[in-house]
C-alpha cells in the first residue's frame, strides 16, 4: 500500500499511515517511559515493526478506521435514510473498494517482491561473494514472493467474474493461512538480524559496491514505472513484515463493510481471527527471541562496574526472593509449575554436555598416549633390529627402514583433530549460552511461583509471560540443539572408530613390511636357550659363577663364626660347683638362650645356671649383670635371667627328658637336650661347621657336624620362628611365632638355601630360612 498511489480519497490516509510506519521507534520510546510493566526493554532495540504490543495495533486500526470513516460515515451522516437497501448498497460499495484495494496492494506488493528477487537477490546469489551473506540478508524472500503471488492469484480468481454478492475473500485467506504463517515466521524471525547485518554492510565500501548496482537498477525500474522512489535496501527488506501486519487490518475493515447476511461474513471473521493469531504468534516468537537475547547478553559484556551499578535494591530483593522461594520448594515440596518436556530436554542437554566434555578430554588423552606409544615402540623395534642383524645386513635394511610411524601418528593426530576434536570443541563452546538461559528460566519460574502464591495478579501475569516465553523458546530450541549435538557426537565417535581402524591398518602394514614372513614362534625359547648355554659355557662366565659361590660361602662362613660362640658349655660339675660356692639367692637361671653381643659378654643356653657376682656392669647400668657360670665370668642381660628354683628346675628337667625320649624314638637325629643336662659345647663343633660350609655342600656340613659332636649339632639346629609362617602345601611346615624347631637340613632338595627342612612336634616340612632366628627375643 505504501508503494502505490491509493485511489482518490485514501491519499490522505495513506500518508498518515506511512507516517505511522515510520513511528515505531517513537512508540518504543514512549512506551519505555510510560509502560512500567516492561522493565528494561532491550537497549538499542532496532527490531522494529513487529515488536508492537496490542495497544499499538489497536491504535493502528483506529487510524485505519479514521481513514475509512470519511466514506463510510460521511454518506450515512449526510443522508440518514432509514432504508436498509441504501445502507447495504453503501456497505457493498465500501466492500468493493476495500477488495479492490486489497488486490491492488497485493499486486504491488507481489510485484515489488518479484523485482527485488529478480534484480537484487538473484544477482547477488549468483555472484557468490564470500563476505556477503545473501541468505541471512534476504532470508526466504523467494518463498515470501511465491506465497504472495499465490495469494494474488487466488484473490483474483475469487473476484473476477464473480458477483459482488458471492465474492468470498475470507476463504482465500483461510486457505493460504497455514503456509503463509510458516513462511512469514521465518522471514520475520530473521528480519532484525538481517537489518543489523545490512547496517554493518553499509559501512563497508567493498560490499556496497556489490549492493549498489543492484539497488540502482531497481531504482531505475521504479522510476520507469513511475512509482514512489525506493528509499533504500532497508525499506525493501521490511516490506513483508509490514505486509503481514496489514492483512488483519484489511480483513477487519472488510468484515466491517460486509453485511451480516453476506456469505463472506463468517469466513471473514474466521480469517480475521486466524491472521491476527498468526501475527500474534509471530510477534510472540520474536518476543521470546528478544527475551532470550536479553538474558543471554546480560552477563557477557558486562564489566564489574556495570554489575555493581546494576546491583540496586530491586535486583537484590528479587534475588533474595528467589533464594527463599527456592528453599521453600526444596523444603516443603511446594507445588510448582512443571514442564515435563522441558525437564526431559534439559536432562538430555546436560548429559550431552557432560558426554561431550568427557569425550573430548578422554579422546585427547588417548591421542596423546597413542602419539607417545607408537613411535616409541617403533624406535625399540629399530634398536632391537640393530642389535640382531649383521652389520652388512643393516646397511641393506636401513634403506627400507620403516619411517611410517611419525608420519602415521602425525596424520592420525591431524585427522582426529579435524574430524573429531574440532567439531566436538566447537560444539562444547556452544553449551554455555543455553546453560545460562536455563538458569534464567529457573529464576523466572521461581518468580512466577512466588507471585502465584501471593496471588499478585498483575505481577504474576508478567512473570508468567516471561517464564512461558523463555520456557517455550528453550523447549523448542533445546530439542533442535540436542538433536544436532547428538548427531555431531555420534559422528565424532564414528569418525574416531574409523580413524583408529585406519591407524591400525597402517601400523600393521608398516610392521609387515619390516618382516614379511615371520618364523614359527615355538623355536624361539629353544634357540635362545641354546645360545645362552653356549654363553654360560664360556670360561669367564663359569669362573665367575664359581667365585660368586665362593664369595657367598665366605660370607656365610663369616656369619656363622660370628654366631658361633666358642665358649664351652656348662657341665654338671660346673653346676654343682656353683651350687656349693654361691648362696641360693645369688643363683639365677637363663630363661632363654642368649648370645654375647658385646665384649666380656658370655653366652648362655636356656636353663643354664649362673651365679650373680654383681648386679651391674662396669658402666653402672643395672640391666647387665656380672655373672659366673662356673667356667667364665662375664656380663649378661638381667632380663634373660630368672631366680633359680631347684625344685622346679628338676621337674622341668624330667619333662624335657621325657619329651626328648619321645623324639629319640621317632626321629632319626639326636635331639637337643636342655641346658640343665649340661651339654658341653665344644669349639670344634663350630669350627668344623664353618669349615664344612667352606667345602660348599650343606649335606656334608650336616653329616660332618653330627659326626663330630651330636649335641653341638643339635644345638646348631635349634631355631626359633621369628614370624609365624603358614604352610602352603604338604611339603611346608606351619610355624607359630617363637615356636622352636629343629632344622634337619639347611637347604632344600635342589640346594636352595632359602628353604630349610625343619621338624616340630613330629612333623617335618620346609620353612623359609629368613623366618627363623637363633634367638627368640626378636
Amino acid at each position: 500500500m505504501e508503494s502505490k498511489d491509493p485511489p482518490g480519497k485514501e491519499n490522505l490516509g495513506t500518508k498518515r499511515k506511512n507516517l505511522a510506519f515510520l513511528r515505531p521507534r517513537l512508540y518504543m520510546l514512549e512506551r519505555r517511559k510510560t509502560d512500567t510493566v516492561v522493565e528494561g526493554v532491550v537497549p538499542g532495540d532496532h527490531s522494529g515493526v513487529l515488536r508492537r504490543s496490542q495497544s499499538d495495533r489497536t491504535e493502528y486500526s483506529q487510524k485505519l478506521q479514521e481513514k475509512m470513516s470519511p466514506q463510510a460515515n460521511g454518506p450515512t451522516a449526510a443522508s440518514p435514510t432509514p432504508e436498509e437497501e441504501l445502507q447495504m448498497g453503501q456497505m457493498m460499495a465500501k466492500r468493493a473498494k476495500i477488495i479492490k484495494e486489497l488486490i491492488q496492494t497485493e499486486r504491488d506488493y507481489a510485484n515489488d517482491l518479484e523485482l527485488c528477487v529478480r534484480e537484487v537477490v538473484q544477482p547477488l546469489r549468483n555472484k557468490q561473494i564470500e563476505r556477503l551473506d545473501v541468505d541471512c540478508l534476504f532470508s526466504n524472500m523467494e518463498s515470501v514472493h511465491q506465497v504472495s503471488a499465490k495469494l494474488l492469484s487466488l484473490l483474483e480468481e475469487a473476484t473476477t467474474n464473480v458477483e459482488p454478492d458471492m465474492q468470498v475473500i475470507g476463504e482465500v485467506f483461510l486457505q493460504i493461512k497455514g503456509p503463509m504463517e510458516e513462511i512469514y515466521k521465518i522471514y520475520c524471525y530473521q528480519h532484525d538480524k538481517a537489518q543489523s547485518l545490512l547496517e554493518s554492510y553499509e559501512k563497508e565500501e567493498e560490499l556496497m559496491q556489490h549492493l549498489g548496482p543492484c539497488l540502482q537498477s531497481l531504482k531505475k525500474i521504479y522510476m520507469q514505472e513511475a512509482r514512489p522512489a525506493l528509499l533504500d535496501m532497508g525499506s525493501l527488506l521490511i516490506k513483508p513484515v509490514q505486509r503481514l501486519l496489514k492483512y488483519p487490518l484489511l480483513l477487519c475493515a472488510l468484515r466491517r463493510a460486509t453485511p451480516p447476511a453476506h456469505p463472506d461474513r463468517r469466513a471473514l471473521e474466521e480469517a480475521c481471527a486466524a491472521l491476527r493469531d498468526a501475527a500474534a504468534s509471530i510477534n510472540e516468537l520474536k518476543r521470546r527471541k528478544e527475551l532470550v537475547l536479553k538474558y543471554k547478553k546480560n552477563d557477557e559484556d558486562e564489566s564489574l562496574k556495570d554489575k555493581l551499578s546494576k546491583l540496586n535494591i530491586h535486583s537484590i530483593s528479587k534475588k533474595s526472593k528467589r533464594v527463599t522461594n527456592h528453599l521453600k520448594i526444596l523444603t516443603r515440596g511446594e507445588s510448582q509449575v512443571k514442564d515435563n518436556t522441558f525437564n526431559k530436554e534439559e536432562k538430555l542437554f546436560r548429559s550431552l554436555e557432560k558426554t561431550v566434555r568427557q569425550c573430548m578430554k578422554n579422546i585427547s588423552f588417548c591421542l596423546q598416549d597413542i602419539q607417545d606409544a607408537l613411535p616409541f615402540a617403533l624406535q625399540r623395534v629399530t634398536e632391537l633390529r640393530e642389535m640382531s642383524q649383521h652389520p652388512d645386513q643393516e646397511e641393506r635394511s636401513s634403506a627400507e627402514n620403516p619411517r611410517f610411524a611419525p608420519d602415521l601418528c602425525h596424520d592420525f593426530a591431524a585427522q582426529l583433530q579435524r574430524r573429531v576434536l574440532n567439531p566436538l570443541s566447537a560444539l562444547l563452546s556452544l553449551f554455555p549460552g543455553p546453560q545460562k538461559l536455563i538458569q534464567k528460566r529457573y529464576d523466572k519460574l521461581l518468580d512466577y511461583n512466588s507471585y502465584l502464591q501471593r496471588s499478585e495478579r498483575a505481577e504474576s501475569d508478567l512473570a508468567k509471560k516471561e517464564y512461558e516465553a523463555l520456557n517455550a523458546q528453550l523447549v523448542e530450541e533445546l530439542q533442535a540443539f540436542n538433536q544436532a549435538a547428538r548427531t555431531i557426537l555420534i559422528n565424532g565417535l564414528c569418525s574416531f572408530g574409523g580413524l583408529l581402524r585406519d591407524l591400525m591398518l597402517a601400523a600393521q602394514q608398516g610392521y609387515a613390511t619390516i618382516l614379511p614372513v615371520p618364523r614359527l614362534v615355538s623355536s624361539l625359547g629353544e634357540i635362545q636357550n641354546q645360545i645362552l648355554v653356549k654363553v654360560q659355557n664360556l670360561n669367564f662366565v663359569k669362573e665367575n659363577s664359581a667365585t660368586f659361590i665362593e664369595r657367598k660361602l665366605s660370607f656365610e662362613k663369616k656369619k656363622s663364626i660370628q654366631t658361633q660362640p666358642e665358649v664351652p658349655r656348662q657341665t654338671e660339675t660346673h653346676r654343682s660347683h656353683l651350687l656349693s660356692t654361691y648362696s641360693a639367692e645369688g643363683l639365677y637361671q637363663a630363661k632363654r638362650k642368649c648370645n654375647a653381643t658385646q665384649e666380656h659378654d658370655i653366652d648362655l643356653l636356656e636353663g643354664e645356671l649362673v651365679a650373680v657376682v654383681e648386679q651391674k656392669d662396669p658402666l653402672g647400668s643395672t640391666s647387665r649383670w656380672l655373672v659366673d657360670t662356673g667356667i667364665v665370668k662375664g656380663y649378661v642381660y638381667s632380663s634373660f635371667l630368672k631366680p633359680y628354683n631347684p625344685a622346679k628346675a628338676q621337674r622341668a628337667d624330667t619333662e624335657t627328658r621325657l619329651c626328648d625320649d619321645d623324639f629319640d624314638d621317632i626321629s632319626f637325629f639326636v635331639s637337643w637336650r636342655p641346658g640343665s643336662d649340661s651339654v658341653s659345647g665344644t669349639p670344634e663343633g663350630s669350627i668344623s661347621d664353618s669349615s664344612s660350609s667352606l667345602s660348599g655342600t650343606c649335606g656334608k656340613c650336616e653329616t660332618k657336624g653330627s659326626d663330630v659332636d651330636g649335641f653341638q649339632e643339635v644345638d646348631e639346629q635349634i631355631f626359633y620362628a621369628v614370624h609365624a609362617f603358614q604352610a602352603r602345601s604338604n611339603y611346608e611346615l606351619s610355624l607359630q611365632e617363637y615356636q622352636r624347631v629343629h632344622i634337619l637340613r639347611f637347604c632344600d632338595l635342589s640346594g636352595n638355601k632359602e628353604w630349610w627342612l625343619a621338624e616340630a612336634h613330629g612333623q617335618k616340612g620346609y620353612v623359609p630360612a629368613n623366618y627363623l632366628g637363633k634367638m627368640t627375643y626378636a
Partner: protein
Amino acid sequence: MSWIPFKIGQPKKQIVPKTVERDFEREYGKLQQLEEQTKRLQKDMKKSTDADLAMSKSAVKISLDLLSNPLCEQDQDFLNMVTALDMAMKRMDAFNQEKVNQIQKTVIEPLKRFGSVFPSLNMAVKRREQALQDYRRLQAKVEKYEEKEKTGPVLAKLHQAREELRPVQEDFEAKNKQLLDEMPRFYGSRLDYFQPSFESLIRAQVVYYSEMHKIFGDLTQQLDQPGHSDEQRERENEAKLSELRALSIVADD
C-alpha cells in the same frame, strides 16, 4: 724406573704387546656398548609396553565414561553404539595385554637373561686387570733385581722373584687369552640370540595390529549403517554446527 718421562733408549718394557691391548680394548669396548644397549633397550622396552598399556587404558576410559553417562539411559541407539564401542575398546585392551605379555616373554626376558651375563664378563675383565697389575708389580721387582749388582743375596732374591712371577704371569696370560678368545664369541652370539626376539616382536605387533584393524573395521561397519564417508560426516557436522549457531539460545553475537 726413570724419572724422566719419554726417555728414549730405555723404554719401560711393554709386558703386554700394544696390539694385544688394543684388540682387547676394542673387543671389550664393543661389549660394553652392547651391555649399555641391552640395558637401555630393556628399560625402553618396558617403557614402551607401559605406554602401549596406557594407550589402551585411556581408550577404554573413553568408552567407559560414555557408558556410565546418563545419556545412555535416555537413548537406546546411543547406548547400542556406545556398547559396541566399549566392546571394541575392551577387546583392544585385552589384545594389547596379550601383546605386552608376549613381548615380555620373548623380548624383555631374553634381554634380561642376556644382560645377566655381563656382570660375569666385567668381573672377568676386572680379574684380568688385577692379574695384570700383579704381573706388572712382580715384573718390576724382577727388573729391579736384574739391574742390581749380581751379589749373592740379590741373585737369591731375583730367583725368588722370578719364581713368584711365573705363576702370576701364566695366570694373566691365560686370562688374557681366554678373554680375547671368548669376547668375540660372546659378542657374535648376540646376533643369533636377538634375531628370534626381534622377529617375535614384529610378529606380536603385526598380529596385534591386524586384530585391531579387524576389530575397528567391524566396529565402524556396525556404527555406520548408512555408510557415511568421512567427508559427508564432516559436512554434516559443519551443517549441524551452523544450525546450532543460528539458534537464538546459542547465537554468538
